């Protein structure tokens, strides 16, 4: 999920470059780390730290908290079993902002005790900091950043354990036509990078079933023109790429305008606030997809992205057990890692994308978003 606008990201990129020039000495420290390992059974990385970079406060703070809970769960299990080689966590709160993340990235790469990064949480901050981490050679696994372009930058240290927006868009289109039985889909987005990417992928995957498209703007509240267009097109389903406020207003005004077809949106709208904005009556029956499923039963942490963060942590810890002593070895280990995580099977392609991901559909029924029983799109 990206929670940033283009202009912010541009600024963040500038800051990122500045941070990079300042961080030259930091990266050399990182290299030193690799030579100082002892060759015994005890890894040189014992007693060192993993870092988390993401939103812990701010409007998306709850998501970061979920991730940290997942990480702490994995570390607790590991430290209980490996009392002689404990690993702890250092958290860096970016508030999900691409403006704040670069300075924290500099701090992270200058910290000798950090051997791996869980994060960054969102796509905007990932794009703003990716180069910094890549040039410092710090391996990272993001539990939640889904923008397609991140893994196209050539940052070989960057990985994610979550399906990207293209995977989600293709799955959503499939769900609409095969499971929901839609024949004429009207596709709408809000013009932001995340939204355009997702809606564009849905549209291209739908092919001839996409009968029209329109673009609203962020902050728009009067959707009457779009509603008229949707109704005039004779669509039996609407897909919206964007966030929950506009998604809720659109769903509400579509229903009030007499639209009776399906309403579907992506992970940007998968939030209880969607139901509040749309009102229970209009929200009922809405389909909200996300590349993350519910935790397996008995899992000790709750919330979206907790399982992904748990899995990402376990991959680092597995590298440690495997005897990896430096960033390079860890990165190599992650690249060839295969395993079954709490969120599903994990293996990475050469770009750092997860090979196989499952997209889930969350449904609104009886005025609540059912976060515990999504349907997996097959």
């Amino acid at each position, binding site marked *: 999920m990206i929670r940033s606008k283009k202009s912010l990201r541009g600024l963040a990129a500038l800051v990122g470059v500045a941070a990079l020039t300042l961080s030259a000495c930091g990266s050399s420290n990182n290299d030193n780390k690799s030579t100082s390992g002892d060759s015994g059974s005890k890894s040189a990385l014992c007693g060192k730290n993993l870092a988390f970079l993401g939103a812990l406060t701010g409007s998306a703070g709850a998501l970061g908290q979920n991730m940290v809970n997942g990480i702490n769960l994995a570390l607790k299990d590991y430290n209980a079993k490996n009392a002689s080689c404990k690993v702890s966590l250092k958290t860096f709160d970016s508030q999900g902002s691409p403006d704040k993340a670069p300075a924290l990235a500099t701090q992270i790469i200058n910290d000798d005790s950090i051997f791996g990064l869980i994060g960054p949480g969102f796509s905007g901050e990932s794009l703003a900091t990716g180069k910094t981490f890549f040039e410092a050679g710090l391996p990272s696994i993001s539990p939640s950043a889904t923008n397609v372009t991140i893994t196209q930058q050539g940052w070989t240290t960057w990985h994610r354990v979550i399906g990207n927006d293209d995977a989600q868009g293709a799955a959503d289109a499939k769900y609409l036509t095969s499971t929901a039985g839609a024949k004429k889909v009207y596709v709408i987005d809000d013009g932001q990078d995340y939204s355009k990417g997702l809606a564009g992928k849905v549209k291209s995957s739908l092919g001839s079933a996409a009968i029209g498209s329109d673009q609203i703007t962020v902050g728009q509240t009067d959707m009457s*023109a779009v509603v008229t267009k949707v109704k005039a097109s004779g669509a039996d389903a609407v897909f919206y790429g964007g966030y929950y406020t506009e998604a809720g207003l659109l769903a509400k005004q579509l229903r009030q305008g007499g639209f009776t077809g399906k309403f579907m949106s992506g992970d940007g709208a998968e939030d209880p*606030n969607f139901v509040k904005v749309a009102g229970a009556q209009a929200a009922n029956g809405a389909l909200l997809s996300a590349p993350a499923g519910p935790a397996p039963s008995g899992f000790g942490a709750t919330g979206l992205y907790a399982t992904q963060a748990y899995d990402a942590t376990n991959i680092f810890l597995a590298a440690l057990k495997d005897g990896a002593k430096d960033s390079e070895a860890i990165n190599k280990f992650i690249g060839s890692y295969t395993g079954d995580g709490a969120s599903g099977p994990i293996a990475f392609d050469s770009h750092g994308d997860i090979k196989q991901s499952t997209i889930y559909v969350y449904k609104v029924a009886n005025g609540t978003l059912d976060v515990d029983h999504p349907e997996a799109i097959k």
Partner: protein
Amino acid sequence: MDLGALFGNYNNFLDFTVGGLVFGAIYALIALGYTMVYGVLQLINFAHSEVVMYGTFAVAWTFVFFHGTGDASWSLGRALPILLVAVVAAMLMSGGIALLVERFAYRPLINRNAPKLIALISAIGASFALAEAMGLRDKFAKWFHLNEKLANYTSSPGSSGKAMGQARDVYSNPVSIQPHGLFHIGGYEVTDVDLLVIVAALVMMFALDSFVRRTKFGRGIRAVAQDPESAALMGVNSTRVVQVTFLVGGLMAGVAATLYMIKIGSTRQDAGFILGVKAFTAAVMGGIGNLRGALLGGLLLGVMENWGSAVFGSEWKDVVAFVLLVLILLVRPSGLLGEALGKARA
């Protein structure tokens, strides 16, 4: 460009037009606040957008107070008792905020004969301060140890009674008002909500027009608008006139906020910005300083936005609105009905 989307089907054309008129009526009511203050002070009150925003929160809070936090869908008739309280609450809130703006952002500067530009900047500052204060209301509640009690007012009320989200996030009225069709014009079904918004806006506009043209205070407002010094010499208390002007603009904003919440149902600490920009545009389009111009400008802007969305795509909505503004100002620099508030015939 897709002219067929707009003109190809008569019913769609009506749909786009009525949808535009409804939102245009809300723009027009807000535009009154800009145009009144401009008429009297020759200043744009940029804090007026926040005056509206506070009104929208007052409406949602009223519903949380009387109804609670459970999600509900009510017809307009069922919501009417709470709506009547809400409109009073919104008018008090918006009127109060408008008076605060006048008292603290304008009067100290006007009394010292500060240049107009300074008052403009002070209004922009007030706008930011007010919007941020709304965004930080959870922190204020905490100072007074009321955060537990006021949780459902400081962040979006959860259906289970437990508040969710943050103060800066979207804040929804738990009761969403379902429009019901009343009659058809062609194939377009006019709903009670549409009708209420348009009629309420017209009635308020008429009432204000009469107030300015027929009452003693109205005469004072027109006198100060024409010539503040002469008006003062004739015994008009210009400070009081300015105060009343702000108050009246605020009261109209309160009504607009209520209509907005009936139609949209949720608000945010930054919701005033777009409404403010649009209403300001409407005021300039119709001829700033002219009350009937504000109505014409608002309705025209609303309709043009929807027609533009139909023909060029919704992403061009704002472009169409502002290009239209530029074109109108090129031909008529003072706006469509450009004449000063003071010159209005008595």
